[in-house]
């Protein structure tokens, strides 16, 4: 290891949690170094090559020993096996690069789940130590800085005071049928807010409606990933460096329990030391917990900042359900006309029963229903058709079916994002046997669902099916594709925040209770998952925390 380098702030991870801190603090005058273990891609690297990008390890590592696997144990399994689940985009910009960009906000009921339910047996739910009023201005800030499109005032459950910076994206004509069907059942469908530009914004061009958003990087620069928006803004200050290919292996602390910096392996695999006045950890809920557990030392024998023993506990994902319907293209064209039939986004969501005391279940919640068209990926479509036939679809039948699927049918689907209750059966720790390519223990995930989350998810899938079935002209086939499954790339909770150091890892400002210059700004802080994808919340909170850190710098509370 060479001579240590020095900086004001080191940020570990360049995604949704890291980038807002990097931009805020570098603009405030601090020298910031962002260490990212993945490569740095430019928009030239983003093609629609399904094999390379979706079916290999472009964004997430292969699940083989010697790469960077996770190990996982799911419902009904007794042992752990290798997986790549739980990884989120390993590249500069993190998961925001290959996200679909659904930008729903949390609601008051998510932050007050404990007091509003009175507690649920077997679930470790707590209220958030901050109020929605504290978070709201930062949602606005996130939307304005990155560029989010949507329509305000049409979602009766929404938590916003300002309009969206950009109008909603153009919807597919089938959105009219969803609106009618939802209206018939007493729901209010609204245009899905997206982190995708509908008009030029911040020097970036608007969306070209290619439809390759989820799983892909945007070759147009219209998706508001932090790599397209915040990181260039941070680098423009001249005080922020983003270093790809740098894997942090340890966070260092001194005898006064202050973080002194990090040790990392650079692009060439050489070990380097970086000293910093503030360390900000934002490597995803799973990987941040892993790094803290790997950074244990004499003063922190259970893992860094883990005197509460809660690092890695209370891991939550998002429960996931999906229903699918198949429409005849020519029938739709008869009713809706052919204009816009090739548009890729359905762009409708429903959140009416987000808080639902009438559902008769233990958890009085519903979820977020996101209506969308099937992804344009052709290989994925072929494999899905074969899988759904239990692999009996092959030979000439397969070719005929493919032709029918792409020429004559339109698949309309909904996804349900649901509350994933934290409980003792879902956590992450270090695998005692499996090591990654660096020789470090990999994260071991145990994922069991709380039965109440599953009940709600099933309930929501039935509700969504009602909407699909109420659409006219009627679909030729409607079926629930899955329910009570897990969306692994939405992850939270492994270092929850709270006021009581014995019951939380972070304080309300997302500083660790045990190390007073170590902050965590990815999804780890969230004590409850909410029933929406968490990316906008992570970013809003990261802006909030960055302002707190900047305030401490200005008040000279952080020693040089």
């Amino acid at each position, binding site marked *: 290891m060479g001579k240590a380098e020095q900086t004001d702030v080191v940020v570990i991870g360049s995604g949704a949690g890291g980038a807002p801190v990097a931009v805020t603090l570098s603009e405030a005058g601090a020298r910031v170094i962002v260490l990212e273990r993945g490569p740095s891609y430019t928009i030239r690297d983003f*093609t*629609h*090559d*399904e*094999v*390379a990008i979706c*079916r*290999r*390890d472009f964004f997430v590592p*292969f699940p*083989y020993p010697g*790469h960077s696997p996770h190990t996982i144990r799911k419902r009904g399994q007794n042992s752990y096996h290798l997986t790549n689940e739980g990884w989120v985009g390993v590249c500069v910009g993190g998961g925001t690069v290959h996200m679909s960009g659904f930008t729903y906000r949390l609601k008051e009921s998510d932050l007050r789940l404990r007091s509003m339910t009175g507690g649920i047996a077997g679930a470790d739910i707590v209220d958030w130590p901050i109020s929605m009023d504290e978070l709201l201005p930062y949602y606005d800030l996130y939307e304005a800085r990155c560029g989010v499109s949507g329509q305000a005032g049409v979602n009766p459950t929404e938590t916003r005071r300002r309009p969206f910076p950009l109008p909603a994206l153009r919807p597919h004509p089938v959105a009219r049928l969803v609106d009618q069907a939802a209206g018939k059942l007493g729901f209010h469908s609204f245009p899905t807010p997206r982190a995708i530009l509908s008009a030029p914004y911040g020097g970036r061009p608007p969306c*070209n*409606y*290619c*439809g*390759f958003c989820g799983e892909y990087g945007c*070759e*147009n620069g219209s998706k508001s990933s932090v790599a397209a928006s915040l990181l260039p803004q941070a680098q423009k200050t001249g005080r922020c460096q983003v270093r790809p290919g740098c894997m942090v292996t340890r966070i260092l602390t001194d005898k006064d329990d202050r973080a002194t910096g990090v040790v990392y392996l650079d692009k060439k695999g050489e070990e380097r030391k970086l000293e910093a006045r503030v360390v900000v950890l934002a490597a995803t809920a799973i990987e941040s917990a892993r790094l803290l557990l790997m950074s244990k030392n004499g003063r922190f024998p259970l893992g860094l900042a883990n005197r509460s023993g809660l690092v890695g506990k209370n891991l939550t994902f998002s429960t996931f359900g999906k229903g699918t319907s198949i429409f005849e293209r020519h029938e739709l064209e008869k009713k809706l006309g052919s204009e816009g039939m*090739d*548009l*890729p986004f359905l762009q409708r969501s429903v959140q009416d029963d987000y808080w639902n005391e009438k559902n008769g279940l233990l958890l009085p919640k519903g979820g977020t229903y996101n209506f969308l068209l099937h992804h*344009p*990926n*052709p*290989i994925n479509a*072929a*494999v899905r058709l*074969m899988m759904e036939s239990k*692999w*009996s679809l*092959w*030979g*000439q039948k*397969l*070719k005929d079916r*493919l*032709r029918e*699927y*792409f*020429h004559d049918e339109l698949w309309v689907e909904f996804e349900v994002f649901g509350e994933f209750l934290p409980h003792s059966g879902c956590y992450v720790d270090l695998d005692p046997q499996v090591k990654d390519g660096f020789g470090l223990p990999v994260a071991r995930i145990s994922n069991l669902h709380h039965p109440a989350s599953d009940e709600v998810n099933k309930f929501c899938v039935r509700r969504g099916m009602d909407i699909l079935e109420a659409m006219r002209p009627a679909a030729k086939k409607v079926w629930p594709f899955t329910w009570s499954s897990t969306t692994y790339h939405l992850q939270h909770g492994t270092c929850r925040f709270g006021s009581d150091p014995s019951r939380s890892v972070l304080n309300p400002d997302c500083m660790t209770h045990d190390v007073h210059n170590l902050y965590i700004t990815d999804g780890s802080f969230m004590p409850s998952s909410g029933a929406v994808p968490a990316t906008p919340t992570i970013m809003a909170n990261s802006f909030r925390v960055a302002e707190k850190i900047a305030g401490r710098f200005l008040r000279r509370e952080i020693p040089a």
Partner: protein
Amino acid sequence: MITRRQMILGLLSAAGTGFYPGLLKAGANTLLGAMSGWVFEPDRLRALLAAADRVLPGVVAAGFEDYINYWLIKEPFNRAADWKPLLNIGAVHLDRVARKRHKRAFADCKSEQQDELLSSFQLGEISARHFSSNAFFQRLAMVCAESFLSDPKYGGNRAQVGWHLIGHHACWWAPRRKLPAGLPAY
């Protein structure tokens, strides 16, 4: 499909005159694969190609051999370490079961016999130690779909026949752009 003989002839012929350049390139790659010892044994390859053409007719004419014999062994694909062994052992079992039932190699069976054999694999009826016949069938079907519908640069969607079948260019940025008329109907 290019045989090794064609490929070597192609390489020897003066700069591949009259040779489709992509084919020459693929041939060279296959030769490199053969030299590095990664390529499937000829008998196994023969069984795999015959099976693939029943699973997704036309896939072999569209360049399936190039796809599995070159791209599956190239970075980053070769790092998906379990693909090749499963296809390899599956090919051995295809021939073994075909010889048992019809006294000839899988590739030499009639189409109906091949279909019947593949059905047994698909349903997981073939029992052998450390081998799951339905897992092999599923992997083979997935590789067929990948080869047929992926970017033609991987050699398996030659002249974009797969995309022609489904009527849009998955790799072009334009949404569901229709292909120009006049391409061969597959």
